[in-house]
């Protein structure tokens, strides 16, 4: 039998490369779609209420999104590995209180932030160890740590609370200040976001997070240190939750034992709306950040349009289901498109 490769090659070539373009386009479109929805929403609101995009309006929009963007960035890394961290809300709460308690006694703001991050790293390590070594589903483990951390927080905080009056003035000013319409906090979040995205794209260990979320068994066969990577993802997620706690303190100045309760679900929604696939291996932190921006903006948009804010939660839910439905439809379409191509020359 003669080798048929040369005559077969051109047949395989044409449909394959257009298949690639299709898939590429769809995945790039995913982030673009959220951005478009976001911009349309802002434009419509601005048209209905010209005060909406004032300098203060933009600043509020960004400030509201900042904390969610940070936590969603960390959560994305965990979700990419086909896991989830439900304890981020509790970690945020306890870190904020720890930083606040330290500052109450007249501490250094930088040390306070470091303290919050270290606390977050500690809880992240705990989650990571339980998930990677215990071989227990992440959903259950982090639901457990969610309650444990919240429990510790409640015992520690009791009925006391920290208010802005207890904090150094500079710290609170930093929390609400900025360069014209761009808050300092948003700049920090943006820096973290860009660094994380760069890491995920350009470093081997970053790509390995995608690999092990995409096919854990293949990852093991490829010699990827699976446990170490999962541990690292959780630690990073915890660190950002801790940092977000410090930022929460700076922004609101008000922390009690309930701070961050239920936040994990908002974070997971933002990540999923942003196109990070819940079954791992796909999505970007930029998408997650856009998802966070979109969800928090709805909070500001509805009042600006005169709609009662009781609708916010329902609309978040609809967005979430819409996002998943779109992903599913797109996945099916891509699959059938590729199948048809394969069938045509198969």
């Amino acid at each position, binding site marked *: 039998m003669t080798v*048929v490769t040369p005559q077969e090659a051109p047949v395989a070539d044409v449909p394959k490369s257009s298949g690639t373009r299709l898939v590429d386009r769809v995945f790039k479109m995913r982030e673009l779609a959220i951005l478009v929805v976001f911009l349309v929403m802002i434009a419509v609101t601005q048209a209905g209420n010209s005060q909406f995009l004032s300098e203060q309006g933009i600043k509020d929009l960004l400030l509201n999104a900042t904390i969610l963007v940070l936590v969603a960035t960390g959560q994305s890394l965990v979700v990419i590995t086909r896991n989830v961290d439900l304890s981020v809300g509790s970690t945020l709460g306890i870190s904020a209180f720890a930083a606040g308690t330290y500052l109450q006694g007249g501490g250094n703001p930088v040390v306070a932030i470091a303290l919050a991050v270290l606390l977050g790293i500690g809880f992240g390590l705990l989650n990571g160890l339980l998930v990677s070594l215990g071989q227990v589903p992440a959903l259950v483990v982090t639901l457990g740590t969610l309650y444990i951390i919240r429990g510790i927080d409640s015992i520690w905080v009791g009925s006391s609370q920290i208010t802005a009056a207890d904090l150094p003035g500079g710290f609170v000013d930093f929390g609400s200040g900025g360069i014209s319409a761009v808050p300092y906090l948003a700049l920090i979040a943006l820096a973290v976001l860009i660094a994380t995205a760069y890491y995920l794209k350009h470093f081997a260990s970053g790509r390995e997070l995608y690999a092990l979320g995409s096919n854990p068994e293949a990852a093991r066969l490829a010699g990827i240190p699976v446990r170490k990577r999962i541990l690292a993802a959780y630690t990073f997620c915890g660190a950002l939750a801790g940092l977000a706690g410090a930022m929460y303190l700076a922004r609101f100045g008000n922390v009690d034992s309930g701070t961050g309760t239920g936040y994990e679900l908002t974070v997971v929604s933002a990540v999923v709306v942003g196109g990070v696939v819940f079954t791992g291996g796909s999505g970007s932190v930029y998408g997650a950040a856009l998802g966070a921006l979109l969800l928090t903006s709805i909070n500001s948009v509805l009042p600006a349009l005169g709609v009662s804010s009781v609708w916010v939660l329902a609309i978040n839910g609809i967005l979430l289901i819409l996002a998943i439905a779109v992903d599913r439809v797109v996945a099916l379409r891509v699959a059938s498109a590729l199948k048809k191509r394969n069938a045509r020359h198969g």
Partner: protein
Amino acid sequence: MTHPSTTGPAPVLALKDVSKSFGAVRALRDVSLELFPGEVHALAGENGAGKSTLIKALAGVHRPDAGQVLLDGAPVTFHGPGDARDAGIAVIYQEPTLFPDLSIAENIYMGRQPRRALGRIDHKATHNATAALMERLGVELDPDRPARGLSIADQQIVEIAKALSFDARVLIMDEPTAALTGSEVARLFGVVRTLREQGAAVLFISHRLEEIFEICRRVTTLRDGALVGSEPLEGMTEDDLVRRMVGRDLDELYPKQEVTPGEVALSVRRLTREGVFTDVSFDVRHGEIVGLAGLVGAGRTEVARAVFGIDRWDAGEVTVDGKALVNGAPSTAMSAGLALVPEDRRAQGLVMDMSIERNIGLTGLRTTVKAGLMDRGAERSRSLDWAVKLQVKYARIADTVNTLSGGNQQKVVLAKWLATGPRVLIVDEPTRGIDVGTKAEVHRLLSQLAADGVAVLMISSDLPEILGMADRVLVMHEGRLTAEIPRSDATEETVMAAATGRAAA
């Protein structure tokens, strides 16, 4: 063992008197094998002969209990697949293990990406290296394309490219052609020949004998975990090879009783599920065992699933004893007297953590209910009854099924479905991965059932089993029924010809 000195160089990789046991099962007994550079070596043997255990010993997945693995003549110990890979051994499994979300280039270089300053990945170098590999293999695959959606054939090419990327000297291919079409096989063989000329040692496993003769130079045959021989293929006929592989009295393993078929029990007419199988029509009569042969991926299991109602069909009709079945409704299929023993008993046939008694009882939940509550006593006696009839070997009926051997698990699945008193029984790969003794028992049981008037449709990739047990053989190829061969005309050649899509001789 003597080898012809025609190959010249010393073996790259060899096994010497290797044994491996799993519990009481001796999977390999004193097996030796030598792989030479620039040579394609075939590994032949029936299912369960120990081929996959041998591969795993070479690949560092299993460590031999006794004997040695020799690399360039020196004994080595592989502590894991990573060690074997570092030694230049690449294994391509039947089901490739890729990252669907990542690009082809990333799949190939995952964990070993070319770097630039500060440890960052050099994406351009990765892309170029992958493009070079694809060119070397003579295939047109875009390195930036995600692996999701690649055909099995292209996925295997990616696996081969991965092997090339770390300069594998030994390439082990476990049934790489099982799911490939004719032209894809030709392309794969082109690649294998190129590798051979570049000096790689290739170990090739295939159930298609003509492929072994086409591409291999020598063959090592295993039977029941022991070495039958290692010899040149030149001058050997397919019959010689089959005799070495089977080597036992077929009548004993396949106790087929002669029966006169009765009325049509299961009738399938022009059944189509778009993109999966097309225009499939056949009958199975009471008392008859009909074999359904074909390559992996030909659509046999899918037809069975559609007939039973697990998947919906797009067109066609299925009747049991003249009564039409409802599309996509397993419960009506069951009440019409249809039973399906699935292919993957661990995932589909059994609840592994449940007891034997409750597993058998699952199909009887409708009948062993009293006033809406489970009648545990009735369930137990029904289960015990069937476990005894099928001679399931267990300590207590309340033991979980994962404590049983593969063969006994298969008997539990059979018991579960026989307990429904089926008129039509569909069995999918009924003896895959079970030992010869239990295999003969399962065959005797199927034969007995047919003699009692049950219509049996048996899907099997085990050709001797099909030839030994079936009154008629249906053959599928790429989603279509390509042949119906009566027992008297069914041979390895006629069935394989239809299964690979060539016209019957």
